[in-house]
């Protein structure tokens, strides 16, 4: 990360190493921007790891039968793919990386409320990640339970599930601390004049997310601890032969893991909400509606968990209640989508890379969300549950949604942090390849899922071959797109032209300070006199 020392542009917080040298200036720094970058590079690393595993899954599924991996290896692969993507990439991805990078600047603070706690969060994350990787190579072999760790299988299997649960516990704890830190920061550290209704919507989305992190993640903690206890001390709380109930495990798991999907998407939505008005040069449509819908999603999203359990054997009353609630969460999401589109109306739209990714986000997330409605309806969920339709759904929302938002955020904010700009044309090419490959890859999955192909299958009936092959081909196109994107952006950040303080003409506070920002973000105490999307007064 120190390649930049040769750069003539070297300025701002990059120079303030706090008296430490080399790697120590990073892994012991309490500066929110440095911690943000630590998170950024770690989540990016795990994204690449996870993506390569995903590529391997698709390779195996190119034709029926066990071609490249044994069934056991395949099971370990998708477990690892899921765990890495969920716990190491997508949950910390936007909030911990970009949240740390820009949220304090957006509200005019010099850092987060508890800088040392912030550093501890990253350390816990790193320790958890290392433990998770250790679990692959020790004792019984790589865990093979799927990222859901369903009992009784996860208690019976001889693979190294215990260590993996400890890793998940620690990573969860790291997320809790980040959320807690952000809540206090947003409540206590706003600059003078930064009233609640002047907070940029990205920060609003982080605020809602942080609540979910703080209140839902502990339930994950106890859930994985229970698996651990079940395996180590034999506390048969989920073991039917000892009076336990395996379905209760699923309740506990989803009490966290459903809200977790909103931990994943809300910050992504926030990124999109901040990008669209800037490139349309027009105030965001329905500011308050969007802010409130973030809170509504966080709140309502916490009570829909059992829609993952429609066929599990839980009571029909629960199916009724949770299906109804599931549909209610769709409404605030719909409000956001409509507001985004309305913001474009009568604007002055400049199709720069961040906006392109934002538009893809709207399209892909809408597909993902609308297929979520198919899953939410009880009758149809019975057919598609645990098939590739679900796999298609969640890749659309997680990758098409959050993943694209992450990449949009890279194109939007990294020039600010590095002070340099990437090549626009290459970014557009990468975007086109990615979006096209994405649709081929995951649309095929949805279709083959509707035809009845179950998930977590290393092998399938020949009648499913066509769509699987198409899907695999899509994964290669997507891979090309991603490589173009990454090569381009990093070449730009390290060797590109200076970006200037406000390359996009944004009106929120992060664009008012220099690029890269100085150590405590502003050379002066910022006074906020207008809203974050007030381009008339806000930009030069």
């Amino acid at each position, binding site marked *: 990360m120190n390649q930049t020392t040769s750069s003539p542009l070297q300025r701002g917080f990059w120079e303030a190493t706090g008296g430490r040298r080399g790697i120590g200036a990073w892994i012991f720094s309490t500066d929110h921007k440095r911690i943000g970058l630590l998170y950024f590079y770690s989540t990016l690393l795990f994204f690449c790891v996870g993506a390569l595993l995903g590529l391997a899954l698709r390779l195996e599924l190119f034709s029926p039968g066990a071609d490249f991996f044994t069934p056991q290896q395949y099971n370990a692969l998708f477990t690892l793919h899921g765990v890495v993507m969920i716990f190491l990439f997508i949950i910390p991805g936007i909030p911990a990386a970009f949240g740390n990078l820009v949220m304090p600047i957006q509200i005019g603070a010099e850092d987060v409320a508890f800088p040392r706690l912030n550093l501890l969060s990253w350390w816990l994350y790193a320790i958890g990640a290392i433990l998770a990787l250790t679990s692959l190579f020790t004792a019984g072999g790589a865990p093979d339970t799927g990222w859901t760790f369903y009992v009784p299988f996860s208690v019976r299997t001889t693979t190294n599930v215990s260590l993996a649960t400890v890793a998940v516990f620690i990573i969860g704890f790291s997320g809790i601390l980040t959320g807690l830190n952000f809540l206090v920061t947003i*409540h206590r550290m706003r600059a003078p004049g930064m009233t609640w209704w002047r907070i940029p919507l990205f920060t609003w989305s982080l605020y809602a997310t942080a*609540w979910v992190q703080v*209140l839902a993640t502990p*339930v994950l903690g106890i859930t994985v601890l229970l698996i651990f206890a079940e395996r180590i001390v034999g506390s048969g709380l989920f073991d039917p032969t000892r009076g336990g109930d395996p*379905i*209760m495990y699923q*309740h506990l798991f989803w*009490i966290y893991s459903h809200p977790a999907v909103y931990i994943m998407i809300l910050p992504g939505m926030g990124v999109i909400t901040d990008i669209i008005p800037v490139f349309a040069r027009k105030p965001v449509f329905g500011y308050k509606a969007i802010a409130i819908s973030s809170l509504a999603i966080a709140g309502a999203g*916490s*009570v829909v968990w*059992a829609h993952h*359990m429609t066929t599990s*054997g*839980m*009571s*029909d*009353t*629960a199916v009724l*209640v*949770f299906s109804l609630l599931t549909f209610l969460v769709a409404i605030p999401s719909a409000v956001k989508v409509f507001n985004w589109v309305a913001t474009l109306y009568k604007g002055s739209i400049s199709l720069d890379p961040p906006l392109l990714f934002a538009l893809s986000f709207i399209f892909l997330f809408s597909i993902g969300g609308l297929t979520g409605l198919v899953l939410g309806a009880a009758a149809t969920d019975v057919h598609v549950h645990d098939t590739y339709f679900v796999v298609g759904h969640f890749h659309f929302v997680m990758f098409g949604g959050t993943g694209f938002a992450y990449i949009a955020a890279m194109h939007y904010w990294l020039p600010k942090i590095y002070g340099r700009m990437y090549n626009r044309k290459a970014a557009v090419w990468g975007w086109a390849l990615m979006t096209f490959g994405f649709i081929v890859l995951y649309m095929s999955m949805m279709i083959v899922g509707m035809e009845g192909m179950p998930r977590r299958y290393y092998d399938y009936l020949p009648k499913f071959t066509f769509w699987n092959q198409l899907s695999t081909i899509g994964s290669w196109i997507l891979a090309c797109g991603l490589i173009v994107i990454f090569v381009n952006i990093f070449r730009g950040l390290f060797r590109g032209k200076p970006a200037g303080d406000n390359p996009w003409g944004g009106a929120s506070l992060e664009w008012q300070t220099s690029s890269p920002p100085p150590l405590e973000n502003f050379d002066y105490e910022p006074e906020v006199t207008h809203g974050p999307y007030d381009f008339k007064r806000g930009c030069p």
Partner: protein
Amino acid sequence: MSEHGDKGHIVPYATLVIVWAALLTLTILTVAVSRIDLGILNIWAALGIACSKSVLVISFFMHMKYENRLFKLFLMIALITLATFIGFTFFDVMYR
């Protein structure tokens, strides 16, 4: 809020000791009540007493009574969340 302005209310020893005595009394009460067979009411009585004890601890020992509205709001959010987690699980187990 100025530096020292919100450093907090000083709760006198007397108040604390009275609260402690009340807590002890409630503990004895809850044991006593549990010896009477009230059927399903037993568990609710136990929970009711435990809740009143919590209110005492939170308000006085933990100074919640003297904190500003934000703290109380936060507390409500957390408790409501816990209650819904427990309550909504019963849509399944009660009707299975």
